[in-house]
């Protein structure tokens, strides 16, 4: 908790995040380039799925990001609610459109993969259904921020939604174990290690890291924007009262 207090000061957050930003941008550019090269040119086609398996290199990293970001939003929301941490709720607000974007990308690439492999664009199995609910949670979260005139109340409402929806994340993760799903079971994050060849696993992990650095860069810019927006509101209110 001591380390959280360091970021509670918005000015310090801006200073520290500005120092981090070029690294995030650089890392994401390098990692995504390397990951794309390995995934598109080096990784061999799958013996069953052929070249369509290359969709994995955008589909799975996007899916991981959407769950990672939502989990971060839930933690940030709890931090904002419990400790009134002044930057936490802004971090969560800044993250939501990025997470929603990755969720949409996962749904789209998943459909494009499902059609040739499963013979269907969509199925209401546990994995896909719980994942679609994640997308609705993101949209609902973003809508709540816009639904109130008072940003404090908006932030509180959004935080509560984020926390209530957090139960969906383990449901998504374990859906392929708990229910009979068309979506395949876990092949990377399993108790006895990944069941996927390194020629696929390495580009996959590199893309995931690249997407994470991308998220880091974008959320820094977006959170700084939210911090400035709050200052603008304060200054405008002071002008009105003057």
């Amino acid at each position, binding site marked *: 908790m001591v380390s959280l207090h360091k970021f509670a000061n918005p000015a310090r957050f801006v200073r520290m995040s500005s120092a981090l930003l070029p690294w995030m941008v650089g890392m994401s550019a390098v990692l995504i380039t390397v990951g794309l090269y390995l995934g*598109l*040119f080096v990784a061999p*086609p799958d013996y069953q799925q*052929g*070249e*369509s398996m*290359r*969709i994995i290199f*955008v*589909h799975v990293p*996007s899916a991981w990001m959407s769950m990672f970001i939502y989990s971060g939003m839930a933690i940030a929301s709890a931090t904002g609610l419990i400790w009134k941490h002044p930057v936490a709720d802004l971090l969560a607000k800044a993250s939501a*459109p*990025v997470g929603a*974007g*990755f969720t*949409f*990308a996962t749904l*789209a*690439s998943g459909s*494009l*993969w499902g*059609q*040739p492999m499963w013979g269907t664009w969509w199925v209401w199995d546990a994995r896909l259904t719980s994942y679609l609910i994640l997308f609705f949670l993101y949209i609902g979260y973003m809508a709540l921020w816009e639904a109130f005139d008072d940003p404090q109340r908006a932030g509180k409402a959004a935080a509560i939604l984020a926390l209530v929806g957090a139960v969906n994340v383990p449901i998504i993760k374990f859906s392929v174990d708990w229910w009979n799903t068309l979506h395949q079971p876990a092949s990377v994050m399993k108790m006895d290690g990944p069941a996927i060849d390194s020629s696929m696993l390495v580009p996959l992990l590199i893309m995931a890291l690249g997407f994470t650095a*991308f998220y880091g860069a*974008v959320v820094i*810019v*977006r959170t*700084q*924007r939210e911090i*400035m*927006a709050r*200052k*603008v509101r304060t*200054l*405008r209110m002071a*002008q009105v009262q003057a």
Partner: protein
Amino acid sequence: MTEFFHMGGYAAFVWPSFGITAAIMIAIVIDSWRGFVRERDTLDKLQSQRTKRKPS
């Protein structure tokens, strides 16, 4: 080269997957940057108005 773009017959599924993901990520970057610049300019304007009003 054409074989690469053909993706073993799955081109219609592989390339839109990459394309949609890339488009979303690019859109996020553009939106984030433009929002940042807009807010920064508004803040600078408001802060300079304040310092003008306060004779030092």
